[in-house]
């Protein structure tokens, strides 16, 4: 489903060159729940971005759903993400001038879904926000915003969902509720999930845990610990 070979990302700022990711080898099967773990600055977000086609590697290959994506054009990658990829971010990233419903609708309409509106309402109901559809992000709490983001991410039935520290900006209880919903939706839709976190508790739910350190895969653990 998702794989990378010898994936390397170098960043140069002036004279110095920084190796953010160093020959990373990884393979994630369809329907898996993989967590990427590591201390801050270890390259987790960078890896996620490369796997999702948000950025291009310095060298190495990235494969997503049988397609090689590391050499595709920016627009081609946009269209690919539109069809196959969903995102949840640490900082929610809702569009402030659109209502909750409109935020959820946006990727659905981009993907040209027929029943966009019904699907958006159904998802908002599933995350417990049926009565908040016409509220703007500023009128919602952090947890509620992240639930809208979940609904938005699952809308077009993506094959892979990438989540970067989805509970990082939330308190423990709210975070737990968001994770629970994420798990439920993933189970119902059969979505492959790649979740980045530095929180071991969060990672316990995952089927695999990929430990990063200084841009390299330190070790991989198999099996949920829950």
């Amino acid at each position, binding site marked *: 489903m998702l794989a990378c070979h010898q994936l390397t990302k170098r960043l140069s700022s002036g004279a110095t060159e920084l190796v953010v990711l160093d020959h990373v080898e990884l393979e994630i099967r369809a329907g898996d729940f993989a967590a990427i773990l590591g201390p801050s600055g270890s390259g987790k977000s960078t890896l996620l*971005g490369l796997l999702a086609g*948000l950025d291009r590697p310095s060298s190495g290959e990235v494969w997503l759903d049988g397609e090689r994506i590391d050499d595709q054009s920016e627009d081609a990658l*946009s*269209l690919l*993400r*539109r069809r196959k990829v969903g995102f949840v971010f640490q900082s929610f990233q809702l*569009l402030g*001038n659109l209502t909750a419903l409109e935020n959820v609708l946006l990727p659905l309409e*981009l*993907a040209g879904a027929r029943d966009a509106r019904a699907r958006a309402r159904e998802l908002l109901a599933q995350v417990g926000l049926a009565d908040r559809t016409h509220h703007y992000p500023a009128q919602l709490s952090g947890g509620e915003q992240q639930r809208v983001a979940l609904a938005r991410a699952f809308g077009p039935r993506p094959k892979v969902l990438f989540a970067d520290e989805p509970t990082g900006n939330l308190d423990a209880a709210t975070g737990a509720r968001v994770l629970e919903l994420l798990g439920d939706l993933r189970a119902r839709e059969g979505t492959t999930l790649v979740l980045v976190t530095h929180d071991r508790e969060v990672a316990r739910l995952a089927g695999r845990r990929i430990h990063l350190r200084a841009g390299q895969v330190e070790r991989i653990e198999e099996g949920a610990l829950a």
Partner: protein
Amino acid sequence: MVTAALRESRGARGRLAFFVLCLALGVAAVTGVSALVASIESVLRSQSRELLGADLSIDARRPVPEVVDGYFNFGGMPERSEVRELATLVSAGSKTKLVELKAVESTFPFYGEIVLDPPGRLGDVLTPQRCVVARDLLVETGLKVGDSLKLGGEEFEIAAVVLDEPGRLDLAFTLGPRVFTSREGLARTKLEGFGSRVRYRALYRLATDPGERALREARERVDAEVEEAPYLKIESHRDAQPALRRSLERFESYLGLVALLSLVLGGTGVAQIVRAWVASRTQGVAVLRAIGFRPREVLAMYLGHVALLALAGSAVGATLGSLLPFLVPLVAPELVPKGHQILWEFAPFAKGLVLGLGVALVFSVPPLVAIWRVAPVRVLRSDVEPLPAPKLVTWSAAIALAGGIFAAAFAQARDPLYALAFTGGLAVLAGTLALAARGLVWIAGRLPREGLDPYLRHGVAALARPGAGVVGATVALGLGVLVVVSMALIDSRLTERLRTALPEDAPSVFLIDVQPDQWDGVESELKGLGAAFVRDVPVLTARMSAIDGVDVKVLSQKRPDDSGVGRGRWVLTREQRMTWLKELPKDNKLVAGALWSDPERLELSVEEKFAADLGVGLGSRITFDVQGVPIELVITSLRKVEWESFGINFFLVAEPGALDSAPHFRLAAARLEPDGETRLQEVLAERFPNVTPVRVRPILDKLLSVLSRLALGVRVLGLFTILTGLVILGGVATSTALQRGREVALLKTLGLTRFGIVRLFGLEFALVGLVSGLLGAIAAFVLSALFLERVVDTPANLPWWALLPIAVAVALASAFCGLIASAKALRSRPIESLRG
């Protein structure tokens, strides 16, 4: 403080550029107008003797009495040179042409040289049998030097053509090309004998330069002691063409206000940029406050920063604007006399600099007031919305703003009434536009967006985006559109009106100075040429000697010495033309009193506006001096005249019988085809050389060309306002660039292509433009309709269908500018969405 201010500008190149551009455009417009006028004035001043041809000129409708000379004895009697001027026909074979004839003595001109081809001195070339003509006459008639032409029935040989007149500025309105003859030559033609349309001018060269004060005192003595003084117009070279300079001043105050409009718009742009900047600095201000800066110090720091930027913007604009006069020789060489060096003028540059700086500061005070309200405790919080300022502070800032705009308008128009009208009008228009824009934003926020295309939905939603400055941008752009569209509408309607102004039944030619015994002959010639609507009236010229028994001399002392129309002195002292009629023509309407209603007295009917200028009303008694005989008439009716009908009309109409026996001539009007008019000129030149035909069509054409020059100026300045509006829109786009950059990254992450993003944001800016364009254009149409119907009294007949195309054009321009200004945001990469 300066280093602190400079540090503030680091890392904000976009803001800097828009700030500078916003101001520079307006300042360039203001400076440009002022520099242009200054450079023309400098021509008038530096060549004032050459323009007048003398130190002193006395102008009258009758010969200038010799006694006047003695008053200008400054270390010796002045030299005097007589000039006679009149409009008359020249003919050569079958060609005829109306010209302005100038009969001069050999001393003419005292200053400057009239350059002739073949070379020679005007005084030497002119003999009683020869004349000198302007090149235009040769071009238009096909004559050449050495040919002969007829003036007032007498033959003249064309001795030379005028290549250059000293300091001649082609701004004056003329009836035809110039022809010079000698006084003896004019005497040969007997044209002078018919009196009524000859202008007498005495030019003087003074023995020594008496200085301004002595000259003024001499003029005052002439006014007080010489009996004919009320009929004399004295002009010294020190006045430097007062009439021309007055129209120049009017031109400057009018165009100056239009230019100021773009500067004020630039000011609103500055306000927006400052507001966005202050909002983004709230945290920084809180930190400064926390480490012990007082609010006043913080404000001073920020104001210093604004002043620095404003200085930069104003300097750029003032430099560009003050260079404008150097373009004139390229665009309109006829406005620059030969040999005149255009100099860079400091005053307009300084004016632009001061106005730009002032407007920028005045407009930044209201948004900067927010700094006072940043409490140090905000360091601990993360919300960056600035608190609203207290009502009192907001209101004082608004009043300061209005005061500043008023001061700027006063500086431009030098008339408190104009300045007040400008400020008030602007406030009302901006307020209306702001209200309408706010309303639309409100509606946009609540509009059901359910069924909309996602791109359009995003655009509509973005209109309601808080803090996006949509209202400000809409007002600025809307005002720009308003100015340009209303100017274009009014200009095109007036031009069209002038072009078709000659109604079907209006006369196309007027015949002046038909002697009573010539009328039968002239009338039969007119009939023979197929003239229609032939009308003739007696015309009598007389001066007023008293109003209600008070001597006009006494009355005129109380009035400003203004040769223009209106309530000046000239209205009272000039030669009045009047007629007598039994019934009023159709285009006259009585507004007060009744026509010829008092059998006991000699009655007069006066046009209502003229009556107001004279300061008379029903029952006023006016005494006229008709060739030395005083005749008193009483006003028993006031009339309104529809001048646009181009009929023969007079301010003053007397009762028949009152003046019939006085010497007079007849004025005739008739409608002829252009061909017929040419033939009429031939016949008149042959049989009645003293009769001057004045054709309406060429005069309308001249008027049109003058109007189109002014309209061009307004249009260019109007363009500046639109440009400023677009720059402001761009400024708004940059001020939200950070937010937009994040959105772009997110949208790309969600799968939008680059084209999709361009479409999305383009649509958003286009919507702002559409709303501004529509609001501005609607306001322009309404104002123009009001102006045309109420002020000019003409059916507006506006092309309302043009509203939508205008709005669409503004929308396209806005989309273009908005996208350019967001270019950086549009390049945000999707990966950036991972870094919250």
